[in-house]
C-alpha cells in the first residue's frame, strides 16, 4: 500500500502557481527523494502533505488519510522536521522533546522514557539540559529529527535536513535516515543536493517550476541520459572557437560558467584524445579535463535545460507569499 499518494496537487498564491498538478506515489518503507532548486515547489508540496497548507487543487493522502478531510489523522501518523529546524532557542533540548511528546498525546512517563532514548540515539544526552540557542547547526538538526520521531511515525518528512551543514554533520544525518528507514519508516526527503538524493533515495522525483519533470530510481534516471560528457576548463583561447571545435566531436551541453565547456561524447574516454588534439591544433590551452559519467544534475539539465546546483539561491522563494 502506498504511504503517500498525490494526484494533480496544486497550490497558487494569488497569480503565482507554486505547485502545478503534481502526481506522486511513495511506497511504504521507501526513501523518496524530492529534488529541485529553491523556489521549485518542494517546500510548498511538503507543507501541503503535512497539512500546514491547504491545496488549491487536486488531492493527496498520507498514511491512507486525506490531507484536507482527515488532517488530524495525518498529523498523528507523520513526523515532520522542517527546513531550518524550527526550534525555540530558549528551550532546552529535553524540554523540546518532552513538549513534542505531549503534543502527540503520549503520557508523561512514556514521553520521558522516549525523550531519554531519543536524546541518546542522536547523541545529545550530555547537551540535553542546555538551551537550544547554544547548539551547533548539526546538533539542532539532530534534535529536530529526534523530536519528529517521538511518537514513532509511519511517515517522516524531512525538508532539506542537511542544508547549511558541514560534511561531517551531513553524513551523521544520512546515517540516521538510513537507520530509520531500515527500521521500516517511510521517509519523504526534500533536498537541493544531488549527492544526497543519489546516496539516500530509492526513488527520486525532480521538480522544477512546480512541475515534476522526471521520476524513477536514480540509476534509471541516469541511464535515460546515456552518454558521459567531457568537462573542459580553458586556460587560454577563445571560448567560442573551442565550442565550435567540440561541437564537431560531440553534443554541447549548457555550460556551468564562462570558462567551462561540457560536451557529450559517444565513446567516453576514447573521445578525449580527439578533443585534446583538435584544441591543441587550434592553439587553445586546456587547464583541466575530466570525463564525467551521467549524474542526477545531467538528468536535471536534460529535462529542464539548466543546471540545478548553479541555480541555488537564484530562484525566488515562493513560500510565505500570502494567498
Amino acid at each position: 500500500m502506498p504511504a503517500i499518494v498525490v494526484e494533480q496537487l496544486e497550490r497558487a498564491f494569488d497569480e503565482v502557481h507554486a505547485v502545478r498538478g503534481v502526481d506522486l506515489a511513495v511506497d511504504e518503507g521507501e526513501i523518496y527523494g524530492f529534488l529541485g532548486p529553491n523556489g521549485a515547489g518542494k517546500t510548498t508540496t511538503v507543507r501541503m502533505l503535512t497539512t500546514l497548507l491547504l491545496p488549491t487543487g487536486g488531492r493527496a493522502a498520507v498514511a491512507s488519510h486525506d490531507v484536507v478531510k482527515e488532517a488530524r489523522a495525518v498529523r498523528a501518523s507523520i513526523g515532520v522536521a522542517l527546513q531550518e529546524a524550527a526550534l525555540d532557542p530558549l528551550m532546552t533540548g529535553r524540554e523540546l522533546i518532552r513538549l513534542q511528546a505531549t503534543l502527540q498525546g503520549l503520557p508523561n512517563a512514556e514521553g520521558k522514557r522516549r525523550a531519554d532514548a531519543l536524546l541518546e540515539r542522536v547523541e545529545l544526552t550530555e547537551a540535553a539540559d542546555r538551551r537550544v540557542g547554544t547548539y551547533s547547526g548539526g546538533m539542532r538538526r539532530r534534535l529536530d529529527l529526534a523530536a519528529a520521531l517521538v511518537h514513532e511515525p509511519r511517515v517522516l518528512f524531512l525538508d532539506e535536513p542537511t542544508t547549511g551543514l558541514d560534511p561531517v554533520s551531513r553524513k551523521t544525518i544520512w546515517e540516521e535516515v538510513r537507520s530509520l528507514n531500515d527500521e521500516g519508516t517511510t521517509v519523504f526527503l526534500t533536498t537541493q543536493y544531488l549527492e544526497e538524493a543519489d546516496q539516500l533515495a530509492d526513488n527520486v522525483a525532480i521538480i522544477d517550476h512546480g512541475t515534476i519533470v522526471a521520476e524513477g530510481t536514480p540509476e534509471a534516471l541516469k541511464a535515460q541520459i546515456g552518454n558521459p560528457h567531457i568537462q573542459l576548463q580553458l586556460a587560454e583561447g577563445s571560448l567560442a572557437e573551442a565550442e565550435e571545435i567540440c561541437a564537431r566531436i560531440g553534443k554541447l551541453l549548457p555550460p556551468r560558467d564562462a570558462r567551462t565547456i561540457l560536451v557529450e561524447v559517444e565513446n567516453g574516454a576514447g573521445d578525449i584524445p580527439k578533443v585534446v588534439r583538435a584544441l591543441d591544433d587550434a592553439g587553445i590551452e586546456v587547464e583541466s579535463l575530466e570525463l564525467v559519467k551521467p549524474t542526477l544534475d545531467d538528468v536535471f539539465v536534460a529535462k529542464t535545460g539548466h543546471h540545478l546546483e548553479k541555480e541555488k539561491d537564484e530562484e525566488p522563494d515562493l513560500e510565505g507569499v500570502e494567498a
Partner: protein
Amino acid sequence: MSDLAKNLRVVKALGLRSVKQTFRRPQLMAPILVFPTLLLAIQTGGAGGAVNLPGFPPVHSFLQFMLAGAMMQSLMLAGNSGGIALAVDIEMGFTDRLFAAPIPRYTIVLGRLAGTATLGLLSALWFLVIGLAFGAPIEGGVLGAAIAVGLVTATAMAVGGIGAAIALRTGSASVVQGLFPLVLVVLFLSSAFFPNALMIQPAREIAEYNPLSFVVEGVRGPIISGVDANELLDAVLAILGIVALGLVLSARALRHRVRVG
C-alpha cells in the same frame, strides 16, 4: 486518557512554555514587571499630593490608589508581550511544529493565553505585596485581594486574546511591538492613573466609556474601599466583552493563518 484531558495537558504544557519563555527573555519580562514598578515608584514619589485635590476619591495613600493602575499597565503589556512572543514563534517557524501536531488548533491560542494569565496573576500578587510592604492596606481584606487578583488574571487572558489575534493575523513581531504606544494611549485614556472626575474633556468622556476603566474600578474598589457588587459586575461584564472580542478576532486570525500556511 480522554480528549479533553489530553487537550488540557497540551494547554498546560504550552502555558508553561510561555511563562518560561517570558522569564528567559528579558525584553519580554521588563515591560511586565520592571517598567510598571518603576512608573509606580516615580508617580507615587512625585505626584502623591494629588490625593488632596477636590474630587479625588478617599484613599489611604496615592500608592494605594495607584496599585490598580500598575496592575493594569502590567497586564496590558503582558498581553502585548504574549502577542510578540507568538509572532516570534510564527517568524521562526515554531508554530509549524504546533500546527503539524494532532491537536485542536485552538489549544495553541489557549496555551499562550494560559501563560499570559499566569503572568497577570504573578503581576497582581507582586503589586499587592509592594502595596503591603510600603504601607498601603487592602481595605477589602483577603476576599478583596482575591477578587482583585482574579480580575487582573482574567483581564490579562482577555487582553492576551487580542494580542494573539494580531500576532496570528500579521505574523510579525515588529507589528505587534509597534502597538506598544497604543497600549499606553488606551491606559492613559482610562481611570488607571487618574480619577475620571479630575480629567478634562474629551479624555474624561473617553475614559468613562473605556472598558478598561470598568476593570480598573473593579480592581481598585476592593483595594481602596472594599468589595462593591455593582463595580464587580461592571468589571466582569467589561472583561467578558474583551474576551468575546479577543475570541472572535483570534478565531478569524487562526483561520487566516491556516489558510496562508
